[in-house]
């Protein structure tokens, strides 16, 4: 017989409502209690059936290909990384753009650019941002009120790696003035010898265009005005990567946030 306290814990565990420490403690209990484990698993199965209590909606057909493209890109990047020995980055970036002859480091960017090109139309067709994105729109309103920007587009970036799943990134871009503002929240520290760097993905440029460094404070927040170092004809996507401290003229590091309008 399982007492009510342990039933409560099982219900919370089934709903992922226990804090990490309590969840670990409960899992230790489960390891020695088959009955409790069966209850916890049953309750999780039961809770998951609630997902079926949602009005039926089909995802847009193009989403399937977008997801398949993403996992293909991940698989290729993983295979490439596994097949290539790690080479230390350049000791320090130079002010002059460095020509990159090797395709290895550019592969994730090539994939990102390809992704951007193939999906740009879909992103652009989405129309105005929806009401629930109040926070993002508020950002734009705030900027407009301060006359910082007049005609702007708002891009939202999403995480490309697990550690950034809670990060939010908003970019307000004024194509006419060729400058923008990037705001990040909940971003992990870049780490010793590293900086976050912004890139603009424009189909007219073979490689991402440098948007400059994005210093993140101790609270994981950044708010930076930027102007890309080359003219942008069409900012299809924006990306944030982790680069050697001080930044690099050509992207080399992992993309941690990527997105568009």
């Amino acid at each position, binding site marked *: 017989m399982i007492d009510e306290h342990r039933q409560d814990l099982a219900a*919370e565990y089934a709903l992922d409502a226990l804090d990490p420490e309590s969840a670990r403690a409960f899992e230790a209990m489960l390891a020695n209690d088959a009955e409790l484990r069966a209850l916890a698993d049953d309750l999780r*199965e*039961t809770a998951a059936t609630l997902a079926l209590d949602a009005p*039926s*909606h089909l995802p847009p057909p193009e989403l399937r290909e977008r*997801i*398949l493209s*993403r996992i293909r890109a991940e698989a290729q990047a993983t295979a490439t990384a596994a097949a290539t020995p790690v080479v230390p980055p350049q000791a320090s970036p130079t002010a002059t753009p460095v020509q990159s002859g090797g395709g290895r480091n550019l592969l994730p960017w090539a994939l990102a650019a390809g992704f951007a090109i193939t999906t740009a139309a879909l992103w652009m067709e989405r129309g105005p941002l*929806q009401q629930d*994105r109040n926070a993002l729109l508020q950002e734009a309103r705030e900027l407009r009120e301060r006359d910082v920007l007049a005609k702007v587009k708002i891009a939202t970036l999403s995480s490309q790696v697990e550690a950034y799943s809670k990060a939010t990134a908003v970019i307000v871009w004024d194509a006419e003035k060729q400058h923008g503002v990037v705001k990040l929240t909940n971003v992990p520290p870049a780490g010793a010898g590293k900086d976050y760097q912004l890139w603009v993905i424009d189909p007219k440029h073979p490689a991402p265009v440098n948007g400059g460094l994005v210093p993140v404070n101790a609270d994981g927040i950044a708010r930076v005005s930027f102007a890309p170092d080359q003219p942008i004809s069409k900012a299809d996507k924006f990306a944030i990567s982790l680069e050697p401290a001080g930044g690099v003229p050509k992207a080399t590091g992992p993309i941690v946030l990527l997105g568009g309008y």
Partner: protein
Amino acid sequence: MSPAKESDRQIDAQLLARIATGDESAFGALYDRFSPGLFSFVLKMTRDEKEAEDVLQEGFAHIWRRAATYDPARSSPFTWAVMILRNKAIDRLRVRQRLDRTIEKATVEFSHFPETDDASAGEAERRDEGALVRSALVQIPAEQKQAVELAFFSGLTHEQIAEKLGAPLGTIKARIRRGLLKLREYLEGVA
């Protein structure tokens, strides 16, 4: 468990095993089987089609990367996938809450999107299952149903639910526990 459900579970588990080896066609097949139900679910949670699409994308990317960690002894593949997407959606809901402090809006109003009629044939079966769940929820006392739904869909912690409903935390935990147990009892009874 009915033979049809058991067969579905085996098919899904086999697909996950293939995905764990990098089989893209298995991933596509699993997407076709799960995406209608999962998309409907995350849309109900996020109430935002764009956000639901992003959650679906993140969730399936996670499934692709972590298929090898699926344990058939612990849950069905669909439950495993539901919980992955639910956590992704909750992460976004909490970020949203932090950003614009719309916690009230995000939890009080559950969505009432008009239902579509163009669901795939496979969706008909899922609709039947959905009807079963809805009929089960009717059997549960209203306050337990409310607590269970808030706990499952809203991303609120149990403490936040207690605060929101103006009830002691212990009472909320008991409502959720009793609600889930009754739901399980009913669903097992009709399976």
